[in-house]
């Protein structure tokens, strides 16, 4: 045990002494979350919008004034017919078109309800969401002041009806970061010992191979947990992404995935001869599939059949499904047990293969 | 021997921050000379050699190689020198001929000149028939001999050799030195570092660097006389200890 602890301590020293490792371990995950988050969530000022006022009465004029007073919008065009809406999106920089129904003021006074339509360019989903939210808020507050049911804003997203945005990318980012930290860093740190020649000395020593592997892996498990927590904390507090399901279950699944990534890292290190090979294998064998095939960026349903089939052997795919189910849909173990079992199966295979490959000797 | 000086070093100082790697070096090397550059690890040999090759710029002092100032005309210097080190010399995954062709292009040789000289040199090495073999299949000794051939392919006026014979067997080591002799005989100046003290004896003149300074510079015979010892090894020990 003493030996094992000495080994773990040594690993931590390596990690803390290497600025690049520290950056990859701590700065990068946070930076990724922030970039992904803010790239889509920044506060919007002076977005140009167009107005199609079919009513042209006092209330619509007042509402438009309110919109402009908010600093969020500047009006670039006043449209005269619905035919112009499409072209106002495609040719101009307009992010949103506000359409007031005819007889807006009359409807409002008579029925207490008037309809305004917000058409957003959702090819940039987050901007669209935010713009529409702001506008809905402004209309709603006007309605409250008038002490009535208010104004019903009907929002339609153009180009991306479901608004898959930041919420949806959180599980993918988690998968990517865990893969990076766990698989790439462990495989590199093990191959570094091979390259340095110290692996020979360690093999000769009374350390058991299993102790060497666990000694290598333990620090990274801890790092990965720290990363999971910081990702969840950031997405919860900074970006208000809720965790609808059980936090404990989510953590458990994350740790399970970490173990999977680590076993992959060990497997890579048993095959790779030096750090560069390990790095390339991690990048091409792990990162690219995570990004391209796991459904993180491109929806799996839209892929050609071959790729859909291929995506089944990409472990992050299952992890992303699990996380989406727990975080965003509030599902429990009952909903994700199948995917969880698949992850476990992957672990068994990878660990089995690496134990077979990792030898007490140098040959084979 | 002609008295044309192909390397002139005057008051060369190189500092890295507070650390002085070269503290005022003064020497010159004649054309066709085999010049041994010795010193303990960390004495400043590598730094000085990098400056002479135009890879690094001196903090102060004058360094002229092949008639050009290395500080102002590094590119001209690089065209006129060959370089070979123990660590890297050839691309393992290219064939012998591909390696030679690559370096000939790097040094701007024209194709016919390269073909002629390349074949001549390879035939001398008895490697011409094997020119399509991958370098990785050669033994270390052959690699080093081939690397030297590549280094003098473009007929440089000076060739720099950084520990060219490390780990090579005694016979190949001698064959290597015969190649050096021959090159020197053809007017190529040879500037060589080595850890084998017997190889120091093969040089026309030898410098020994200690702590960034040149502590001795003379022919091996005169150095041995001066320190009243029998071998260059003992000269080295007397100085560096």
């Amino acid at each position, binding site marked *: 045990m003493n030996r094992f602890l000495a080994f773990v301590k040594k690993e931590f020293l390596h990690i803390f002494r290497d600025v690049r490792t520290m950056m990859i371990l701590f700065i990068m995950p946070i930076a990724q979350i922030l970039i992904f988050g803010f790239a889509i969530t920044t506060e919007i000022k002076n977005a140009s919008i167009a107005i199609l006022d079919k009513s042209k009465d006092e209330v619509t004029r007042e509402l438009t004034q309110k919109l402009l007073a908010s600093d969020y919008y500047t009006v670039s065009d006043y449209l005269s017919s619905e035919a112009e809406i499409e072209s106002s999106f495609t040719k101009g920089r307009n992010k949103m078109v506000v359409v007031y129904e005819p007889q807006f003021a009359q409807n409002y006074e008579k029925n207490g309800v008037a309809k305004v339509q917000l058409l957003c360019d959702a090819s940039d989903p987050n901007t669209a969401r935010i713009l529409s939210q702001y506008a809905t808020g402004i209309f709603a507050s006007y309605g409250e002041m008038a002490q009535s049911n208010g104004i019903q804003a009907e929002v339609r997203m153009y180009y991306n009806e479901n608004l898959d945005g930041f919420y949806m990318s959180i599980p993918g980012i988690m998968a990517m970061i865990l893969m990076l930290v766990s698989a790439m860093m462990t495989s590199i740190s093990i191959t570094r010992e091979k390259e340095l020649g110290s692996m020979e000395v360690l093999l000769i020593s009374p350390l058991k191979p299993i102790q060497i592997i666990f000694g290598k892996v333990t620090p990274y498990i801890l790092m990965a947990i720290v990363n999971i927590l910081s990702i969840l904390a950031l997405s919860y507090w900074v970006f208000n992404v809720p965790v609808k399901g059980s936090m404990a279950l989510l953590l458990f699944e994350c740790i399970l995935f970490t173990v999977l990534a680590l076993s992959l890292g060990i497997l890579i290190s048993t095959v790779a001869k030096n750090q560069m090979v390990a790095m390339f294998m991690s990048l091409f064998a792990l990162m690219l599939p995570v990004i391209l095939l796991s459904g993180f960026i491109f929806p799996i349903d839209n892929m050609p059949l071959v790729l859909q089939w291929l995506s089944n052997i990409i472990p992050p795919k299952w992890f992303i499904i699990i996380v989406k189910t727990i975080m965003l849909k509030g599902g429990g173990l009952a909903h994700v047990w199948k995917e969880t079992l698949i992850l476990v199966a992957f672990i068994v295979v990878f660990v089995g293969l690496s134990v077979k490959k990792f030898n007490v000797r140098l040959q084979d | 021997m002609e008295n044309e000086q192909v390397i002139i070093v005057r008051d060369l100082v190189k500092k890295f921050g507070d650390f002085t790697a070269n503290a005022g070096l003064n020497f010159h090397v004649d054309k066709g000379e085999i010049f041994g550059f010795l010193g303990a690890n960390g004495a400043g040999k590598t730094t000085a050699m990098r400056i002479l090759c135009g890879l690094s710029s001196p903090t102060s002092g004058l360094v002229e190689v092949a008639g050009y100032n290395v500080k102002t005309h590094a590119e001209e210097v690089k065209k006129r020198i060959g370089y070979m080190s123990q660590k890297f010399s050839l691309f393992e995954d290219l064939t012998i001929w591909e390696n030679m062709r690559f370096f000939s292009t790097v040094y701007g040789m024209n194709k016919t000149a390269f073909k002629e000289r390349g074949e001549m040199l390879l035939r001398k090495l008895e490697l011409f028939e094997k020119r399509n073999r991958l370098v990785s299949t050669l033994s*270390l000794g052959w690699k080093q001999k081939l690397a030297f051939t590549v280094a003098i392919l473009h007929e440089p006026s000076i060739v720099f050799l950084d520990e060219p014979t490390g780990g090579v067997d005694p016979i190949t080591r001698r064959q290597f030195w015969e190649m050096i002799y021959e090159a020197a005989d053809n007017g190529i100046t040879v500037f060589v570092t080595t850890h084998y003290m017997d190889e120091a004896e093969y040089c026309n003149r030898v410098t020994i660097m200690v702590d960034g300074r040149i502590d001795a510079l003379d022919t091996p015979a005169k150095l041995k006389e001066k320190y009243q010892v029998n071998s260059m090894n003992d000269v080295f020990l007397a100085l560096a200890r």
Partner: protein
Amino acid sequence: MIQFTNISKSFDEVKAVRNVSLSIDEGQLFGFIGPDGAGKTTLFRMLNSLLIADEGSIELFGLDPHKDYKKVRQIIGYMPGKFSLYYDLSIEENLNFFATVFGTTIEENYHLIEDIYKQIEPFKKRHAGKLSGGMKQKLALCCALIHKPKLLLLDEPTTGVDAVSRREFWDMLKSLKSKGITIVVSTPYMDEAGMCDSVALMQNGQIHAVESPKAIVDNFQKELLAVKCNDMYKALLTLRNYENCYNVYPFGEYLHYIDKRDSKPIEDINDCLLKHDLQEIEINPVKPDIEDCFIELTRKLSV
């Protein structure tokens, strides 16, 4: 005692070690001497159980490195060819790590490393990557010694190290030997053979000779002449073409010349050199050293 019996080992097509048999006595300072690719490292890795021989058997203090690899690994202090310490750990941290891994403490075996460690102790907080070659070597030696091994196995510890540090290193080995540790070293430097009690000259996976350095030199049958003159390269070419020349090669400031005939042909050679306009000729019989023997043994094998 360490005993190799008919050991062979191949990697794919390459025969790294070919039918090697030799024995090393306990308490000896034994050297494997040969160039890169001679098979020294492979032999060492079979001895320390990291590789298994294709053929033959090895015995190490009554143990079989193959079957009893756990016990064997306990009694060996191994220093691989490459500098195998952690560059980003300090001297102290490196030593502590290896001590703990081998289940001991620095204090317990301090007496073994004291002489060496004292020289680097003033820098114990310095990272290993920032040490000079000689200091790295001392640290590596301390780490290999810290668990009080019966056998110290050093693979090319002096390669790429300057002459002064090499001399110091061999002095350290001699003092360790006096403490009863068996030491097996490999080196490409022929001049280090003289430091060993016994040496094996190795090339191409084969052993040319296993004997004390003195016996190897004494077994050199031929008359050796040292030749010196004003143009050594020309002299070399001249003598190589001389009809009675058996072998001639540069050797330090001299050429070493061996004649085909048994008589001492100093006069003949002098005449030959004079005929080719060489001057300041100096010819003396000399005693061979290990390198001459190595060259001769290689030559015999290749003919």
